[in-house]
């Protein structure tokens, strides 16, 4: 929990010596509370005060980096239970599990690292590969880890019940800062020692008992490992939701530091749709790392899309790029519609047009990410803006007609737009996007 200015003031020397550059200790404290200056500016601050302020400033869910270099990913640092309260900050890593006895291990690791898909101008990827011990032989696990590391530049996680296997495997890949584990009540000493030696994050595995889990993370931390990821040890989606909700609540609302770590969820699944159902829940309910077993684009694409959607900042109206969009395969006779660049407006309109089966040109005006009515009321979507958008797009040259369909909500603009665009004929479309298919099939077709 962040401290208030007054709480910080009580921890300061209260001598108003001005050496920090502020006229009083209170002014300095207020600025500190706003994170506008540094505590180190005060030459007389005690160690105790520093420790208290550091602890208060630490995020309730620790930020943990997995991997090293360009493809490393960070998870944690979350501050809310519901995205509408603020936002979710660090998208969960999605990793592919391969077992050390899988003959296609290297091939799968390479394909996981290479998977990428483009969506709304963003490149979405998988985040890494989990190598899991199945054969039970330390040398085999080390060889499999080396093969996965050679095949993939993405972050790794090494999961073996036998710490000796982890030690054998880590030799060659420690520099890549893999997540290693599981640290359990039985193995944590060895695993934590390895992690401390190599500077790796540790996967701590619980068994459903919160007290035992908190003791375990505290032990691992005591052994010198700060970067911890928690596998709550859930047996299915139901216990996963319960476990992750409890852990997130304890971290955020109760400030239980020993449980304030990113969480890991396993989502196997016998079919694409079973795996997707499990992983959708894990992403929604606070997982920091989601591990899947299937390397199937039909599974991965919806998952990376869901992750992107859920972690979009609800505080900012999301905008789409203002430009001319082609829906279906429009030709010179296809209708031209205009709307604003508020993403929900765009998606609703483009979805309805797409659903109508009528290919169309959709011109998106820059209305500062506002919807049609709000944009119109704010002067961001007026006749001038519409005219400018049409002219700048050069769409006129691509059409056999000069007809522009405007949203029904701004019907009042039609005369003004025709004044600004004397060669164009303005048609008033429906007020609601849901009526677009009918409009395109009937009114437009009759034109």
């Amino acid at each position, binding site marked *: 929990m962040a401290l208030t200015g007054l709480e910080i003031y009580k921890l300061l020397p209260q001598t108003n010596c001005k050496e920090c550059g502020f006229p009083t200790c209170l002014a300095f404290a207020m600025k500190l509370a706003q994170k506008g200056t540094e505590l180190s500016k005060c030459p007389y601050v005690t160690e105790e005060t520093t420790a208290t302020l550091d602890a208060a400033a630490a995020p309730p869910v620790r930020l943990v980096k997995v991997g090293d270099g360009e493809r490393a990913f960070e998870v944690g640092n979350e501050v809310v239970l519901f995205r509408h309260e603020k936002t979710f900050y660090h998208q969960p890593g999605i990793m592919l599990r391969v077992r050390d006895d899988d003959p296609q291990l290297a091939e799968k690791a390479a394909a996981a690292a290479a998977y990428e898909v483009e969506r709304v101008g963003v490149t979405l990827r998988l985040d890494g590969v989990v190598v899991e011990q199945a054969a039970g032989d330390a040398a085999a696990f080390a060889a499999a880890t080396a093969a996965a590391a050679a095949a993939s530049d993405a972050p790794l996680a090494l999961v073996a019940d036998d710490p000796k296997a982890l030690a054998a495997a880590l030799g060659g890949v420690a520099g890549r800062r893999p997540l290693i584990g599981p640290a359990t009540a039985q193995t944590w000493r060895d695993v934590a020692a390895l992690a401390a030696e190599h500077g790796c994050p540790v996967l701590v595995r619980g068994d459903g008992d919160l007290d035992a889990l908190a003791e375990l993370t505290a032990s691992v931390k005591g052994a010198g490992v700060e970067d911890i990821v928690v596998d709550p040890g859930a047996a299915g989606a139901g216990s996963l939701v319960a476990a992750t909700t409890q852990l997130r609540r304890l971290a955020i*609302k109760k400030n239980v530091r020993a449980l304030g770590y990113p969480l890991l969820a396993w989502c196997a699944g016998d079919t694409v*749709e079973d795996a997707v*159902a499990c992983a959708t829940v894990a992403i929604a309910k606070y997982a920091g790392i989601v591990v899947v077993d299937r390397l*199937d*684009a039909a599974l991965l694409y919806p998952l990376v899309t*869901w992750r992107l959607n859920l972690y979009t900042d609800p505080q900012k109206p999301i905008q789409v790029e203002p430009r001319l969009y082609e829906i279906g395969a429009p030709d010179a006779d296809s209708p031209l519609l205009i709307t604003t660049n508020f993403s929900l407006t765009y998606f609703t309109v483009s979805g309805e047009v797409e659903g109508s089966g009528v290919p169309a040109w959709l011109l998106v005006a820059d209305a500062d990410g506002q919807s049609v009515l709000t944009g119109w009321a704010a002067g961001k979507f007026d006749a001038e803006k519409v005219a400018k958008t049409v002219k700048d797009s050069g769409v006129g040259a691509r059409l056999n007609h000069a007809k522009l369909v405007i949203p029904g909500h701004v019907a009042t603009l039609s005369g003004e737009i025709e004044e600004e665009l004397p060669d164009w004929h303005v048609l008033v479309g429906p007020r609601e996007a849901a009526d677009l298919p009918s409009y395109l099939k009937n009114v437009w077709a009759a034109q």
Partner: protein
Amino acid sequence: MTIEVPRETWQGAVREVTLGAVGDGGSRTTTVTVGGERSLPFLHFEAPLPHRPVMAAEVSDVYPDDWSPALLETLGEDARDPGAWAARMVDAGAELVALKLRGAHPERQGLGADECVATVRKVLDAVGVPLIVYGPGTPDKDNEVLVAVAEATKGERLALGNCEEKNYRTLVAAALGNGHLVIGQTPIDVNLAKQLNILIGDMGLPLDRVLMDPNTGALGYGIEYTYSVMERLRLAALMGDTMTQQPMISMAGEEAWRQKEARAAEGVPEAWGDLADRGVAWETTTASALLQAGADIVVLRHPRSLAAVGRALDELMKEA
């Protein structure tokens, strides 16, 4: 170290709503009750979940030639016979049938009230589960055909949809007079959803006969808005705001299958994967996400999604 399991104590609860009637004018073999939650979804440690969320299967009265090829291929000839179609989906795990009278749309077959009533009867005869009946989605025609359906099926406790802010009176009156339920649909907004519940309640329809549909954005097409609005509605309900306590229904299937990701087999990146799996996954993801936001009924289209969401619900209903 002793850590207490963090349980919230909520003041409010979601209303229980029962669809379908066995006897007393109802011809169903089972009824379905949804709602009654006293905690956020699937938190069995906080409060017992009285009713498992329910899967409805969407069935069209006329052949849905505009649906995704991935659906039409799977449904085959059943998509030409709403009775056979409904029965097949019940076999696949649907606990409700959501019949959409699309053929009544003036731009489709423009079917009249009599034909719509006949289709509803046919589906009622084909399955024993309760029915949701949607009009074609245009105000005049919705009122025309749904009033006729409501009168012809008096006592069946159908859920009739959709009531919208500009068009709810006729439908609410028909439900009120004939022992049915209504679904109120509002565009992804907490206050609009609440207001429509108030308007419907003001007409005298008991609120245990009202479902709300806060409108669904599909995966990739605004699902995050729907997700947060549903979460906020459910939180408000649990905090005791009585006008947000209606069980929620989501048209996850319809929205997911409308999108290019669930329709396009060719001319799309390889990283999208195979259409048959991708379409099912798009629908399953949309439904699974919204169940976490508080959906009580998800309306689905593909038998595989229905089966997968059913298995996921089996898991989610297990207490830790």
